[in-house]
């Protein structure tokens, strides 16, 4: 009886917390269906009129369709940085786990030490170096630094060390496979679950990135969604220019998070896999 009461209490607490976590999403969903007037004049947590499609049209056609360009940029940066970072991490993670080369342990200790260097300490000097290389305000300024993922290397090294037996690699070598062949046909397939996790985390990190593109880019045709939406938000708050209205920004925000939430729901297993691996350390 006592435990039943406890279970009810537990569910009430979880229910309240769920309301807290989901309320902003509900608000966003409702707000995206209102026009600008409705946004200001109706109950903010309930529907009033249905203008979602008008809003979407405004989002995608406003300012010569710059939102679509931002969306495309975000997707492009995420895809290139994500795949690139995963490939680099896979090669290095495998080498750290299974290949004996001079300096391996020192290099890995260096990596462990540098995993903790905060990004904020790097953005300014990276910007200055990039500007000396004439790369500021190009896609490379955003993509190249995102290819470095020490945590991905660490994660894949742990995974390879635990899940791929040396005998498997030896067998492939005895069959006459070269090192790259061994990597491609034996190692890569065996590390696939961890690769998906690293890919997912690097893509999301790139999609969510703000500080780096904020500093590196000034051409609004190169902006990712995060930086672009902020400029809309600032001009709407300051009330200057023919910028976007609140209803457009709200709808734009909804459009920006939908792909992430879909990816998140579909790939739950890998999210959790990554966090679990990360927490074990």
């Amino acid at each position: 009886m006592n435990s039943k009461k406890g279970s009810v209490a537990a569910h009430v607490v979880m229910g309240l917390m769920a309301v807290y976590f989901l309320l902003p999403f509900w608000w966003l969903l409702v707000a995206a269906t209102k026009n600008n007037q409705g946004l200001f004049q109706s109950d903010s947590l309930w529907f009033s009129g249905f203008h979602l499609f008008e809003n979407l049209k405004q989002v995608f056609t406003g300012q010569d369709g710059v939102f679509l360009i931002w969306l495309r940029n975000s997707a492009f940066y995420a895809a290139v940085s994500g795949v690139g970072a995963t490939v680099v991490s896979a090669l290095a993670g495998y080498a750290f786990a299974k290949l004996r080369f001079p300096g391996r342990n020192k290099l890995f200790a260096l990596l462990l030490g540098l995993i903790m260097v905060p990004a904020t300490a790097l953005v300014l000097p990276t910007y200055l170096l990039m500007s000396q290389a004439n790369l500021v305000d190009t896609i490379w300024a955003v993509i190249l630094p995102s290819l470095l993922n020490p945590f991905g290397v660490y994660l894949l090294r742990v995974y390879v060390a635990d899940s791929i037996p040396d005998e498997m690699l030896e067998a492939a070598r005895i069959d006459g496979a070269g090192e790259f062949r061994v990597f491609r046909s034996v190692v890569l397939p065996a590390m696939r679950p961890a690769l998906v996790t690293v890919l997912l985390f690097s893509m999301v990190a790139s999609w969510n990135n703000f500080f780096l593109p904020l500093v590196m880019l000034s051409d609004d045709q190169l902006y990712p969604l995060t930086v672009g939406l902020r400029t809309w938000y600032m001009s709407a708050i300051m009330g200057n220019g023919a910028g976007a209205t609140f209803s457009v920004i709200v709808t734009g925000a909804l459009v920006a998070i939908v792909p992430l939430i879909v990816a998140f729901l579909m790939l739950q297993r890998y999210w959790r896999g990554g966090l679990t691996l990360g927490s074990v350390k």
Partner: protein
Amino acid sequence: MTEVQTSPAAAPAAAGPSPKVSTRRATHLREAATGWLFVLPFVVLLIAFLLLPLAYAFKISLYRSTLIEGEVFAFTDNYQQAINDPLVREGVVRVLIFGLIQTPVMIGLALLAALLIDSATSRFSRFFRLAAFVPYAVPVVIGTLMWGFLYSDSVGPFAGLGIDFTASDTVLASLGNIVTWQWAGYNMIVLYAALQGLPKEIYESARIDGASEVQIALRIKTPMISSALVLATLFTIMGTLQFFTEPLILQPLNPGSITQHYTPNMYAYGQAFSFQQYNYSAAISFLLGAVVFIGSYIFLFATRKRSALQ
């Protein structure tokens, strides 16, 4: 079978290196070369986007840009200026206070949620696990924009309460709420993963001894995941020291309460990109980065023994 001879003259095995040893050496060489080839892209990136920028930031932080003489060596001048700068101090004190309050609140909430989903196995608890984690999938910029609207007295649902969420005495709490909303679920999953790794037999024997579920949660489960808790706390504190995106996004709502020097990072950003004070900015970020880095490293070192066991 086909032992490769190193020299055409059949030397006795004892005199020179045996064929077996030399093939082994060749294998070693090949493995070393392959190893370096495989880590090469990573090493290049590590140098270009981590070591080089760090060294460069350190270098320019030791110089000072003057109108007449150009860049002059100033040794620790910039650092002394940063340490004595009241605006830096104000920002540091603010993020410290923020970290001291926000961290226990958020980790506490995450722990409570993790303990709940660990003990309840209903369909709702699975739904709750998702609901709590979804905010983590939202970009910080967009999460902050959403809360900016929610805090608004014209379009937000709390407009009737008559609270000014961006006033100078409430804005830090409002920012803390955004961070909690975004990261509590993430920490919940990390702690939940640690709870799932505990042996279940202990709970059984505690139950037989008459312990209630609450007692099991507080006296057995929580102490057993203390290392995960400490780690989550550390990462949260490190994050709050670097506080940047949330206050920057909310700044236009009330530039009077979220100033240009609200956090050390915002100050460094403003010094660099609004005033072109690259040397001074580098000194501030380097100082902040060093504090974060050394703190983390001491922690990692202290917990190394524990992780080596696993």
